[in-house]
C-alpha cells in the first residue's frame, strides 16, 4: 500500500520539472565543508554547460569558505547520486546526465581549514 486511504489514491508530485519553466533543479554540496549548513539548491536550464555551473553560481557560493580559493578543479572528485562520477566540463547538464533534482557532491581531500584537529 502506498498510502493508507479508504479508496484508491493517486497524488501529483509538486516539483515536477515542467513547473520550472524550462529550468531544472540541481543540488550541489562540498563534502566535509559544513560552513554551508545544507546542500545548495540551484535552478538552471539543462543546456547550461557544466563549466558555467562551476564557475558561475557554485564558485560564488563557495567563496565564503577559506578553502575555496585553493580548490583545484582538475583534481576534484565528484559524486552524483552518491556514486563516483566524472563530469565533462564542456558538456551541458543534460549531456552530463544530470537530471532534475540530482545531487552532486564534490570532494577535495586534504583541504579542511574549518575542522579543528
Amino acid at each position, binding site marked *: 500500500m502506498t498510502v493508507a486511504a479508504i479508496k484508491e489514491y493517486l497524488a501529483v508530485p509538486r516539483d515536477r520539472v515542467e513547473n520550472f519553466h524550462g529550468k531544472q533543479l540541481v543540488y550541489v554540496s562540498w563534502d566535509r565543508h559544513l560552513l554551508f*549548513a545544507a546542500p545548495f*539548491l*540551484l535552478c538552471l536550464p539543462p543546456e547550461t554547460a557544466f563549466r558555467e555551473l562551476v564557475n558561475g*553560481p557554485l564558485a560564488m557560493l563557495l567563496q565564503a569558505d577559506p578553502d575555496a580559493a585553493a580548490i583545484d578543479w582538475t583534481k576534484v572528485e565528484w559524486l552524483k547520486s*552518491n556514486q563516483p562520477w566524472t563530469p565533462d566540463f564542456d558538456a551541458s547538464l543534460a549531456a552530463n546526465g544530470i537530471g532534475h533534482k540530482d*545531487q552532486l557532491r564534490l570532494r577535495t581531500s586534504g583541504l579542511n581549514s574549518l575542522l579543528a584537529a
Partner: protein
Amino acid sequence: MDMKVTKKKLGLKDKYKLMTRDLGWEPSYHSKDELYPYMNYEGIKIHDWDKWEDPFRLTMDAYWKYQAEKERKFYAIIDAHAQNNGHLNLTDARYLSALKIFLQAISPGEYAAHRGFARVGREFPGVGPQVACQMQAIDEIRHAQTQIHAMSNYNRYYNGFHAFADQRDRIWYTSVARSFFDDAMSAGPFEFMIAIGFSFEYVLTNLLFVPFMSGAAYNGDMATVTFGFSAQSDEARHMTLGLEVIKFILEQDPDNLPIVQNWIDKWFWRGFRVLGLVSTMMDYMLPKRVMSWREAWDIYGVENGGALFKDLARYGIKPPKGWDDAEKAIDHMSHQFMLGLYQWSFGTAFHAWIPSDDDMRWLSAKYPDTFDQYYRPRWEHIKKLAAAGTPFKNYGLAKLCQTCQLPTVFTEPDDPTLTCHRETVYKGEKYHFCSDGCQHIFENEPEKYIQAWLPMPQLFQDPVNGDLGEWMKWVSLLDGKDNGDYAGSEDQKNFEAWRGLATTNQ
C-alpha cells in the same frame, strides 16, 4: 399556597453518566458503518468502546466553568503586562526571536490540533472519546487564541510579529510544523490520536513546553509565562488522554500492536525533527538560559521517555525505531540549526546572530565533546567575515527533506563531519531526505509525501519564479526590519533606547 420544593442535585457519578455516556444513542435508520466510515481502513480493531476509561470524569458544564475562570485571570495579567510596559522587563530583545518562531510555527499548530480533535471527536463511535476529544478541541483553539493575544503586545513595539498568519502559510521554516500537523490531520482518526494525542502530547510535549515556559520566566516574559500557567491543567489532561488512547487501543486487540508500533516509530521521528528547533532556542536564543538542550533531553527524553516505554513494554511496545539516532544527534543539532538560521537570516522573520565569546564559553562547557571540535571553528570564521565587513550570507538556499521539510542540515549519525545524504526514486521522480528516519516514513506511504509543498523548490515556480524580492513580498517579510542579524537591527536599537529611557535619566 405554594410549596417550596428543594431542587434535586445530581451526584457526581449520575451527573457524569447523564452528561457523557448517556448522550450516545444506537442508530436506527443508518448503520454504524455509515455513521462512522473511517473506523476500519487503518486496520485497528475495537471490540468494545465502553471499555474506554475517562481519567478525568469531566463534564462539559464543569469544563466551561474552569476554563472561564482561567480566562479571566489570564486576561487580567495580560492587560497589566501591556499597561506597565512589560516588554521592557525582558532580559534582552534577542529573546523575541524564540517568541517569533513560536508564534509563526507553533501557535498555528495549536489551531491545527483543534481542527484535528474536532474531526476525530466526530469520527470515533464511542461517547467517552467523543467528549474527551471535544474538550481537547476547545482547549487547542483557546491555546491558539491566548498565545496570539499574549504575544500581540510585542507586535506594537517589535518587528517580525505582524504577519504570522501569512508566514504560517508561506515562509519556508514554518512548513516544518505545518506539514507535521497536515500529515496527522490527513491520516485516519486512530493514527491522528497516536500522532498528536500520544507521541506529541505525551512523549514530546515536555521538551517543548517546559523549556519554553521556563525560558519565558528566566527572561522576564510575563505574558508567555501567564499563558503557560493557563494552559498547564489542559496539558495535564491532554497527556492523560494520550496515554489512555494507546492503552485502550492495545488492550482491544493483539492485532493492533504492529500498527501502533509503526505509528510510534513514525511520529516519534517526525516530532523529534519539529522539536529540533527548540534545541536552538534553548542553546542559542535565550539570553538567560534555563538548561542546555542536552540536559533537557536527558531529563525529558531519556529519563521520562525511558520510563514510559518500560511501562508500555507489557503491551509489547518497543522504544521508537529512531531513538538511537536521536540520541546521537543531541549534541549536534542545536549548532547545526543555528548555523543555518544565521546564514539564511535574510529569509527569516526573526533575527539570528553570532554567539558572543561568553555564549561560546557556555556552549563549550555544555557540549564538551562537540562544540570546540566541530562548531566553534565555523563561528570564529563567521565572526571574522562579519568583522571584515563581509558578513556571511548563504544565498544558495537549501535542499529540503521531502518528509520533515527541514533543510538537510544534519550529519551522518556516526560522522559529524559529513552531511547525511539520502535519496530515492519513486515513479521516476527523485526525492531527498535528511535521515534514514524520514526516508522510512516516505517509503511507507510515498503517495502521501510526493505532494509535499517544499518552500525552496516552490520559490522557483509560480508565482515567485526565483525573484527573492517578490518572494519577500509574497511572504510578508519586510526586508531590513523583520530579517537579518540582530546586531544593528531596529529591534536592538529600539529595545536599548526604550530600556534606557526606563532605567536612566538620559
